[in-house]
């Protein structure tokens, strides 16, 4: 018989799922989307993703050390932030601006609040919102997908020197001689010219747009896999999509030549990526079961309202940031009814 035995408190069993494993799985689910983005837009996107991820991880490491929280890079959450941020940026986005976005996202969006678990908003979107305001031209400069020679050369704007305006890409695009390139994303074409890109193209993603948001199909597959692994709350993307589609439907029925169809709304722009991978950020979404549905619907509705009536072409980023902001409030409203208590009445104190 042994001399030393260990004592712990119950429960003595533990599910074999930990934060780092969840985060690693999310990274794994994002990799096919990242690979597709690189295949579609070339070397520039590879550098872009490496830059945002590297900058996010470095920033996380620095602030965790500076604030004495130890090495928090190992929880993999900074990798997700960097990767997601890169996927939401235009393919030719200057690398130095991308690094700024990643730095701001982690520093202001996460470290300021106390790191993982305490951030109010999705750090990747905080970073993107910052560069959207700071560099409005660069973030709306789109380049064509499947440009010839995309693995041999970089998009000229990619290597813009730090603190410089991005190198114009119009001449470079003209030099590519690509047929049918209008210089606009499907979202912009729909909004300003009322030309709806066919569903086959937006769904499969063989279109222009931000690096990783183009293929609704691929995002759907990766998201469903993550939900099946029980590392993503399927109710969030489902309610975001439901909220967006249901808001778009009546307008489309009124005037299909002016307003986008619900499926176009779902498959265009960043909605699919945002619904599956950003709105579903565990930390920044409500914790209650009913809360996440309200939160998802709110984001979906707001996205479409901004798209249809706002000055912006895409509204999903601000919709999620606003959803994040009211998330704690939604959690408060939707506290579960405790067993044995009457609805709306607290159990008697004793």
């Amino acid at each position, binding site marked *: *018989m*042994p001399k030393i*035995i*260990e*004592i*712990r*408190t*119950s*429960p*003595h*069993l*533990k*599910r*074999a*799922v*930990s*934060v*780092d*494993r*969840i985060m690693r799985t999310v990274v794994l689910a994002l990799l096919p989307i990242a690979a597709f983005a690189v295949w579609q837009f070339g070397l520039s996107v590879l550098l872009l993703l490496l830059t945002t991820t590297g900058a996010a991880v470095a920033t996380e490491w620095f602030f965790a050390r500076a604030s004495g929280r130890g090495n928090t890079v*190992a*929880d993999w959450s900074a990798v997700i932030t960097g990767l997601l941020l890169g996927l939401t940026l235009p393919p030719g986005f200057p690398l130095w601006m991308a690094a700024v976005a990643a730095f701001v996202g982690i520093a202001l969006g996460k470290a300021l609040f*106390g*790191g*993982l*678990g*305490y951030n109010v908003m999705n750090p990747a979107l905080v970073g993107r919102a910052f560069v959207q305001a700071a560099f409005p031209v660069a973030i709306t400069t789109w380049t064509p997908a499947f440009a010839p020679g995309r693995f041999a050369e970089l998009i000229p704007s990619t290597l813009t020197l730090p603190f410089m305006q991005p190198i114009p890409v119009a001449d470079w695009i003209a030099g590519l001689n690509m047929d049918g390139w209008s210089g606009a994303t499907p979202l912009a074409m729909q909004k300003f010219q009322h030309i709806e890109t066919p569903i086959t193209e937006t769904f499969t993603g063989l279109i222009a747009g931000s690096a990783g948001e183009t293929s609704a199909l691929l995002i759907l597959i990766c998201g469903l896999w993550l939900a099946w*692994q*029980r590392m993503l*709350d399927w109710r969030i993307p489902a309610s975001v999509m439901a909220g967006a589609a249901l808001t778009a439907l009546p307008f489309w029925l009124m005037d299909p030549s002016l307003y986008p169809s619900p499926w176009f709304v779902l498959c265009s722009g960043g909605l699919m990526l945002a619904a599956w991978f950003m709105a579903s950020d*565990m*930390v*920044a*979404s*409500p*914790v*209650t*079961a009913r809360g*996440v549905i309200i939160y998802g619907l709110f984001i979906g509705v707001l996205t479409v309202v901004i798209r249809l009536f706002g000055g912006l072409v895409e509204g999903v980023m601000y919709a999620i940031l606003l959803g994040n902001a009211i998330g704690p409030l939604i959690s408060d409203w939707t*506290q*579960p*009814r*405790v*067993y*044995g*208590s009457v609805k709306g009445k*607290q*159990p*008697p*104190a*004793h």
Partner: protein
Amino acid sequence: MKHQTAVLDSQRVPETGRSSLMKRLDQGLLRFFHGHKTFDHGIYPIEHKELTADKPIRRMPFADELVIPLLQHKGRPAIPLVKVGQEVVRGEPIAQADHFVSVPMHAPATGVIRAIGLAPTAEGPKTPAIFLKVYHAASQQVLYDMERDPERMSVKEIIQAVQDAGLVGLGGGAFPSHVKMHPPAGRVIHTLVVNGCECEPYLTCDHRIMLEQTDALIRGILIALKATRAERAIIGVEDNKLDAVAHLRARIARHLPITAEAVETKYPQGAEKMLIKSLLDLEVPAGGLPADVGVAVFNVGTLAQMGDLLPKSRGLIERVVTVSGPAVKNPGNFVVPIGTPVRFLLEQVGLKGPLGQVILGGPMMGMAVASLDVPVTKSVSGVVALEPEHPSLARRQVYPCIKCGECLNACPISLNPSMLGELALAREYGTMAEQFNLDQCFECGCCAYVCPSNIPLTQYFRIAKSINRDAKTRHEQHLDATKRH
């Protein structure tokens, strides 16, 4: 190193993901076709019941010395009736009940009282106990008995007899059974719920009791029906023991108001609040008792002992215990004399190698013992031994709460463990109780089990509750003191 641990965990504790998919599918289909009743939320830990589920109950020999704590139940400790050096016969009362919420103790073996002193317990502090040196040469016959017919006894006589037998909740609750038979004034019991769920992993003693001590169990149910004046009894059994359900249904005579029903295999189905919800769709009011909704809940082991002991006027001197776990060589179900040290039990079943941790009860709510000298008491349903390398003993990094909401989806009484955990960190213990129903928590451990951040939520809540209790006591003492002046 951490990565290695994770791989190890996923291999050895396949509780999510693909490895358990088939099992989950099986259970899902079962539920779909049979529609077994259940409650909201809860978890599905791996059961490990196959280690002992088909092991018939065998008798454990007597240890050299038995240690009988005077407080093995909820309430006041029993008062010793014996002196050091006195010889006692198996079954003889050795301690008497102290008022109503207390039960007597009986000698589990023929022998001599060696000492009355302090003994270690699983809870931690040493408590007064009677040390009984066993006469191995004695025949160990129970001589203290007298045949009687519970049918002819009045309700009052039955309740007294149940107390005299020293019966307490053998499922782990250890609440004196006769107190439960005596509902608070103004409450009428309509249904007797017989708890055969045994939702804790590893434990199979109740399963074996339902299979092997069926007649005693039915006798016990009839006695309890009479004492509580309930109209009917429902035996709730988790659907991983459908053989027990079928066996019970075959043995219960048609005219009896007793039914056996399968409920979903889900932890903590065996918690009385959960089982009442599953079987009757009633909710015990917060801070209330099952009697408030007209229900009394008894464990199958308790009623089997009642059915066996009452007609003979005997006392509770032994119980069925599952001795199992990955560190045990020959796991099984055993009739163990009350007071047998855990060390003796483990010696009898043999160990595969070094011991990591020994748990009294099941691994979800049981207590790890600090010493192998801790005795088996009336409420110990299992002894689970883990080896040192067991994944549940691996040191885990604690991360901040990532608000994933898993704990909210696991909590069977729909608390918000995530919020409670944050409040505990902020030492807002009062707020936890006043606004977030901390006192409703019965420490089932589901939240800590699912938490991916490895936050010891259940332990936080235990500490918070005990701090609140202390604060309340201090407050009352303060009030008393000011009144006096």
